[in-house]
């Protein structure tokens, strides 16, 4: 093979030499890579002694000594001079330098090969040839041989341009002999051709969709070839987006984008949580979510209005150089979503997608719960202790559980001991969850259909789509449906110098939220009676009371969950539309001016209708019923339904003007720059109201909201809820921005960006100062250097960036703010205002400095390529609480006083393990993001507030940390003990109220600092299989312990295993750590155990997330097929945990949840016509 290969190069056949002429370097490099394995073992020291011999002969000698190949075309050597050289045991590089010193030739070493080219002519050389010109003529056609009219033909590095005429023909006069022509046409690859008098027929290749998406990153302001970007970008192309089937766009990004984490384990108990973060957390009270940009503008609407099938690609901007162009909005990273567009000169292409996803019924037995038998045991215990006596005799008739009712009847002799034992025994064997799972939960079924058509003519392109989704969720009567319609059109005028695009996106969502699964107090209820009718369950008052009260003149006061399930009517309708228009004009070649406007409106109406038959309505009417002393019943809350409406209206307008420069100057210099300004306004209006006596026919009754009424049966007074509220928000921004990158010789890039934001949120002082947020970046493609010799690493690029991103907390104001209470609490009989925050003229943006070092590499053979990046994020002037001199009138103050730091690593590694008929590739994503609060001026006030609050910033620790008390075992009386000030203590109130935070132990972060995935893609002929395994490491969570106080109060949400392992008798402390029951319960004692480090679990786990199996058919193979391409696929999601560190049976992503996301199975088809 070696011989054959060199022979070809030494004397290339005619055809090959022509190709070489055209695509010299890339082709050669590609071929060399294949050869590189055999060239590996040769020595590199050279010994030569030649006088006046042809260059080719010397090279031949060196080749045999070094194993290096020499790549050149015959024509290159025709100018070579004779060589005289004497060297002994010298380095190859040194020898080559000596030889080529005197040659009119240049060489580069690439992959153990020496590529020889003509020397770049010096200025004098250039002058010599400057006057040698010729006239050039050619004809440009597409792949089918059809002429391309209006194609641009440019002499590379100059401003000389012509366009092809009617039959695709062009002519250029006076072209330099060594010039290169650059021929471009929209939708086709730009190609370069060496000039000849007669260029003949030039065929342009169609630019495929993949190329468009893979090679280009979009910041929302510009698109850049990835090779020209210094910043940290993650691109997700259409294929990868379609790998997962989902209704929501963001769901599709999980597990496939490096640095992007889905914070599932933080739960709703946390303060200001974010479900999604790019490279960790760098703010405390400000907006914690990444900015989502859709079609160049920040998206303020509801993401569920976007149909993922209309998305062409997603780019995630991770570092300052990538994101800081978004200025004050970019502090949490930016996710840029680009919707699909048509292509010029393309026949209409139709794509049809349909899929069906079936989900397993949720496992509602997952969450820890006491068994019914244990609960009955506790009730009996409490009854004997007299715990219920006060309730039993209370005139407010609070509800008693069925078992306690039986015990009361037994005590008063109404039933026999045997009967009560039998009935109580039956409760001990009944589990409410059985009926819940039967009547309230179901398998989910999601259907998704989408059809789109795209294409274009010479001066126009378009994209239209319609989508329909219908999801039956896993809770009975909870459904979602969406209809989306999109259209975009682009027209070109004035020989494509003027471009006008309009787009309209419309979506209508209907969310039905009728399956209220809130558990029904007691663990042993039946929701159906034995005769099959819907059972009444104990709710607010004792049944014996509500059945007799009012002698039938009150409404039925029984609560039947299954009746309510059928009656629930809780829907949210959301209409969302977005119009976008853009005009772009090419002033001169490479310089565009554009004006873009987008308007986005979302209107959602939440309608909660409580029908007259619903328990809520009957209860509300009954409670307010007034019984006069003469026995007259009046109803301040009228009969009929109760309807609550909440209307949210969002209106966002954006206007942007921008000048873009994208130009190559000479062979070496390229500039890519934008400068522009924009204004943005986002208005939100929320109003809500409540109608009483509502009938479907449109009736509603006026209500007395001002009076207080005595309520039945509690006798306390209350007013009828008016439910009227309104809130208006308005955020306005004016921004100026600029971004430029300069590329030298294709290997050195310098980039910079600056942006100045002003808004109505921030103080006059800050707005006027207008310190811009900026970034700087540099990149160096080492592998393009002459000295670069690592053959095993043919591509190596280093990137360095730094800069500032911003963030906003728009609940704050530089002015003094007050809140006005309309409720007349004050005896002064007037509304009054409370000071919310004193004036803070120094309020300013949060600033996040991010530094990023990245290395892009590709191993020889293209089998392995990847990127490794190290970053630090330093949030300064973060909004935080601080202690101030109370003499000022406030003791704590919210202002720009905190700092945070995030350090991390992102690694992406793609490897092609097997290629050919059976191919196998692997993608490893590894991300590390460790955040730390570096400055915070207000410590939690006590040990218990540090442990329990959703966020307790403590200097030196992550923002969301898991803290615990140091467990010191059970005492010999079964009491929990922990360490307090270095001593074993049972002073529970002292432990929890201690101000000295050294009494708590930092266990670790609550969010995983390490996360990522390993995806393996296999394909065999038409089959493809993709398996994604995700992992999260390094975080901790607190499993629920055992709270006797809560259990006595009726809670069952504790582990049966712990309950049965509790301390029962002296000596048990040696075998168990679960405290024994005490009566009365002591909630501090419960908490000391529940907050102890015993219950802290590691969150580390590895999950088999999903599998996608597909089968592809193309028309090329079978021309009778009615479609161009067809993909049939099946997809299984949420498959299961492969390994987890905790031994307590909890899924760390769902440790607090009622159940983990059920596994889903999908089948689908995607066809192109």
């Amino acid at each position, binding site marked *: 093979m070696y011989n054959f290969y060199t022979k070809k190069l030494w004397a290339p056949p005619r055809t090959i030499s022509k190709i070489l002429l055209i695509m010299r370097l890339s082709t050669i490099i590609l071929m060399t890579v294949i050869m590189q394995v055999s060239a590996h073992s040769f020595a590199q020291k050279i010994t030569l002694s030649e006088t006046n011999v042809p260059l080719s002969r010397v090279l031949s000698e060196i080749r045999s000594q070094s194993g290096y190949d020499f790549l050149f075309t015959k024509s290159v050597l025709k100018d070579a001079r004779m060589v005289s050289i004497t060297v002994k045991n010298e380095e190859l590089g040194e020898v080559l330098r000596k030889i080529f010193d005197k040659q009119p030739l240049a060489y580069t070493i690439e992959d153990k090969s020496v590529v020889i080219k003509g020397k770049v002519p010096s200025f004098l050389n250039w002058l010599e040839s400057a006057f040698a010109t010729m006239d050039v003529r050619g004809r440009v056609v597409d792949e089918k041989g059809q002429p391309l009219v209006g194609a641009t033909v440019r002499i590379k590095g100059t401003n000389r341009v012509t366009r092809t005429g009617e039959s695709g023909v062009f002519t250029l006069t006076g072209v330099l002999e060594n010039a290169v022509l650059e021929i471009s046409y929209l939708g086709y690859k730009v190609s370069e051709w060496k000039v000849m008098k007669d260029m003949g027929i030039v065929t342009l290749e169609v630019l495929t969709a993949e190329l468009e998406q893979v090679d280009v990153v979009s910041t929302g302001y510009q698109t850049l070839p990835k090779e020209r970007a210094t910043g940290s970008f993650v691109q997700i192309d259409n294929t990868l987006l379609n790998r997962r089937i989902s209704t929501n766009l963001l769901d599709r990004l999980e597990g496939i984008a490096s640095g992007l984490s889905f914070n599932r384990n933080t739960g709703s108990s946390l303060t200001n949580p974010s479900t999604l973060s790019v490279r960790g957390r760098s703010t405390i009270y400000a907006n914690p979510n990444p900015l989502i940009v859709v079609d160049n503008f920040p998206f303020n609407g509801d993401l569920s209005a976007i149909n993922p099938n209309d998305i062409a690609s997603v780019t995630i901007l991770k570092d300052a150089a990538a994101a800081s162009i978004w200025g004050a909005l970019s502090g949490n990273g930016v996710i840029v979503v680009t919707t699909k567009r048509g292509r010029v000169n393309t026949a209409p292409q139709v794509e049809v997608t349909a899929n069906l996803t079936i989900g397993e019924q949720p496992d509602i037995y997952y969450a820890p719960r006491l068994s019914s038998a244990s609960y009955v045991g506790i009730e009996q215990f409490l009854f004997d202790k007299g715990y219920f006596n006060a309730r039993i005799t209370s005139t407010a008739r609070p509800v008693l559980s069925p078992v306690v009712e039986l015990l009361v009847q037994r005590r008063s002799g109404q039933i026999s001991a045997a009967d009560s034992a039998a009935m109580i025994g039956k409760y001990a064997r009944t589990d409410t969850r059985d009926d819940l799972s039967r009547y309230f939960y179901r398998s989910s079924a999601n259907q998704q259909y989408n059809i789109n058509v795209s294409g274009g003519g010479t001066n126009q392109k378009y994209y239209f789509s319609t989508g329909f989704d219908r999801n039956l969720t896993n809770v009975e009567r909870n459904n979602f449906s969406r209809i989306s319609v999109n259209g975009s059109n682009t027209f070109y005028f004035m020989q494509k110098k003027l471009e006008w695009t309009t787009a309209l996106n419309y979506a209508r969502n209907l969310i039905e939220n009728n399956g209220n699964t809130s558990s029904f107090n007691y663990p042993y209820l039946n929701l159906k009676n034995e005769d099959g009718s819907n059972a009444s369950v104990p709710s607010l008052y004792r049944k014996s009371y509500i059945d007799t009260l009012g002698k039938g003149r009150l409404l039925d006061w029984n609560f039947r969950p299954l009746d309510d399930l059928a009656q629930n009517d809780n829907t949210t309708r959301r209409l969302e539309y977005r119009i976008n228009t853009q005009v772009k004009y090419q002033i001169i070649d490479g310089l565009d001016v554009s004006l873009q406007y987008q308007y986005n409106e979302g209107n959602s109406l939440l309608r909660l209708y409580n029908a007259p038959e619903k328990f809520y309505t009957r209860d509300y009417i009954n409670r307010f019923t007034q019984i006069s002393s003469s026995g007259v019943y009046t109803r301040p809350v009228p009969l009929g339904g109760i309807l609550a409406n909440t209307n949210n209206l969002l209106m966002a307008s954006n206007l942007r003007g921008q000048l873009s420069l994208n130009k190559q100057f000479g062979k070496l210099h390229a500039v890519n720059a934008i400068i522009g300004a924009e204004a943005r306004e986002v208005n939100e209006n929320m109003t809500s109201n409540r109608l009483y006596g509502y009938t479907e026919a449109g009736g509603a009754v006026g209500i007395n909201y001002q009076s207080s009424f005595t309520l039945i049966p509690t006798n306390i007074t209350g007013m009828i809820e008016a439910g009227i509220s309104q809130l*208006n*928000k308005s955020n306005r921004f004016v921004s100026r921005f600029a971004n430029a990158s300069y590329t030298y010789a294709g290997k050195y890039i310098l980039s910079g960006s600056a942006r100045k934001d002003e808004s109505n949120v921030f103080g006059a002082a800050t707005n006027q100062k207008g310190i811009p947020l900026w970034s700087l970046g540099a990149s160096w493609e080492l592998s393009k250097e002459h000295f670069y010799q690592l053959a095993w690493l043919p591509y190596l690029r280093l990137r360095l960036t730094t800069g500032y991103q911003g963030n906003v907390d728009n609940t704050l104001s530089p002015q003094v703010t*007050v809140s*006005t209470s309309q409720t007349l609490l004050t005896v002064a009989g007037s509304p009054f205002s*409370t*000071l*919310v925050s*004193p004036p803070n003229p120094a309020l300013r943006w949060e600033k996040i400095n991010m530094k990023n070092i990245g290395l892009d590499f590709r191993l020889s053979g293209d089998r392995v390529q990847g990127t490794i990046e190290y970053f630090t994020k330093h949030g300064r002037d973060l909004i935080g609480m601080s202690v101030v001199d*109370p003499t000022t009138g*406030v003791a704590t103050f919210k202002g720009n006083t905190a700092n945070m730091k995030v350090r991390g690593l992102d690694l992406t590694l793609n490897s092609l393990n097997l290629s050919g008929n059976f191919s196998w590739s692997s993608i490893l994503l590894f991300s590390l993001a460790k955040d730390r609060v570096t400055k915070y001026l207000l410590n939690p006030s006590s040990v218990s507030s540090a442990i329990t609050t959703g966020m307790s910033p403590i200097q030196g620790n992550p923002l969301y940390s898991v803290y615990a008390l140091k467990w010191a075992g059970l005492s010999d009386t079964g009491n929990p003990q922990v360490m307090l000030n270095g001593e074993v203590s049972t002073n529970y109130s002292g432990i929890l109220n201690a101000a000295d935070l050294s009494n708590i132990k930092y266990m670790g972060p609550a969010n995983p600092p390490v996360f990522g995935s390993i995806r393996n893609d296999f394909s065999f002929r038409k089959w493809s299989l993709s398996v994604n395994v995700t992992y999260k490491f390094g975080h901790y969570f607190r499993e629920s312990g055992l709270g006797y106080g809560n259990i006595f109060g009726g809670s069952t949400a504790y582990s049966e295993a712990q309950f049965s392992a509790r301390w029962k008798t002296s000596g048990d402390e040696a075998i168990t750590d679960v405290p024994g029951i005490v009566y009365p319960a002591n909630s501090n004692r419960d908490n000391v155990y529940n907050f102890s480090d015993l219950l802290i679990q590691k969150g580390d786990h590895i999950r088999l997330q999903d599998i996608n199996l597909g089968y592809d058919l193309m028309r090329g193979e079978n021309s009778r097929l009615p479609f161009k391409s067809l993909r049939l696929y099946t997809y299984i999601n949420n498959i299961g945990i492969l390994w987890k560190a905790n031994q307590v049976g909890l899924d760390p992503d769902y440790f607090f949840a009622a159940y983990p996301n059920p596994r889903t199975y999908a089948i689908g088809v995607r066809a192109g016509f």
Partner: protein
Amino acid sequence: MACKKEFLDKKPISSLNVPTSLEELNLLLLNKVDIHKSPALGEMSSDDYYMATQEWSGQFLPYFTNSYVWAQDIYVGAGNISEWNIPYTQVLYANVVLERMTALDRTADNAGDYDDLRAKALFIRAWAFFDLAQVFSPPYDTQTAGQDLGIPIRQTADIGAPTTRATVKETYDRILSDLQEARRLIKLDKSVVNGYMPAKASIYGLLSRVCLTMRDYSKAGLYADSTLSIKGNLINYNTLSTTASVPLTITNEELIYQNTLVSANPLSYTVTSQGYSIDTMLYASYEANDLRKLIFFSLNGVYINKKRGYSGGITIFNGIATDELYLTRAECYARSGQDDKALFDLNTLLSSRWKAGTYIPLSGLQGKPLLDKILLERRKELVFRGLRWNDLRRLNKEGYNITLVRNLGGKQYTLAPNDIRYTLPIPPDVILQTGIEQNKR
């Protein structure tokens, strides 16, 4: 550019109010939650009540325990003391109003409301400054007031402005001049809505209280007289229920200005709890036909509970009421030798307090015995009205030599007359944040 400025002036959230009109600023002064509250440390350190030992040792916050025995360090490091913080929050409210008002034009149309608002803000700030001075700075003494350290007089809403201590003289000068200005600007003579809004009567009432504290008896008497000429009605206690647990309510007709002590203190337990009691000697000084014995107190085992405050609340009323001003005027008459006028005031008050037909008007008392009788009745009438501490500081300066004694668990604590501990320490977090000088103890 102007267009851009307007664009960016829009309010971001409707519920985030930046008060800009007189009406909106006035709503801040109607806040009952943050205004109408005074420090309780003085009353807590006074001698009208006592705590049983086990109650005393079980107090929730260290300064509740320590102030009771006049300990040197009462806070033992704990900060966030409402005794200091709440009055200064009131100062901030007033300063916000005063500062933001300057951005509004005073026009012919709004002049009345404009001036009235400024008067109210000045009054509220003066009230807070006066309260603070009674606890955190030494008693007023014309000889030393120019050197004694007063309290920080904050006159800006800017939380960045430094905190420094004024002298006692500067403190009282500021209080007096603010009240004088308020007196000139205020619109109404009498407060409507149960005394929650300052009016001319409340300003005169406070001026009288301030001058009495400064031992400027002639002025104190004049201001008391001015107040009583606007509102001087007294309740006939025979019309009140002696068995009711809340005999006096918020509609109490003697009320001129509503104010209570802060709720965080052990004093409120004296209303209901065992272990908290009114001083037995004080209780014994009420004669059998004095209705106040039944209306003010209830027996709870061996303990004498004080019924709810003068305006019906659990927290102790220390606002201004007509009875206080009768006593002040009587004292000032007595001090200036107008014994008849003094006796008349005293008899007027007491005859409304005794069982109908049992009160024999005092006559013939003169000089020191008359003054002593007035001061005794002052203590009996104004029990648990947050005024005893001021009186102790003032009367000891007059040479009354009152020594306070606490007996706890066999140990006796005393506070000698004019002891430097009559000035309480400034909370440690304030000292830490500002570096201002701590009071000597």
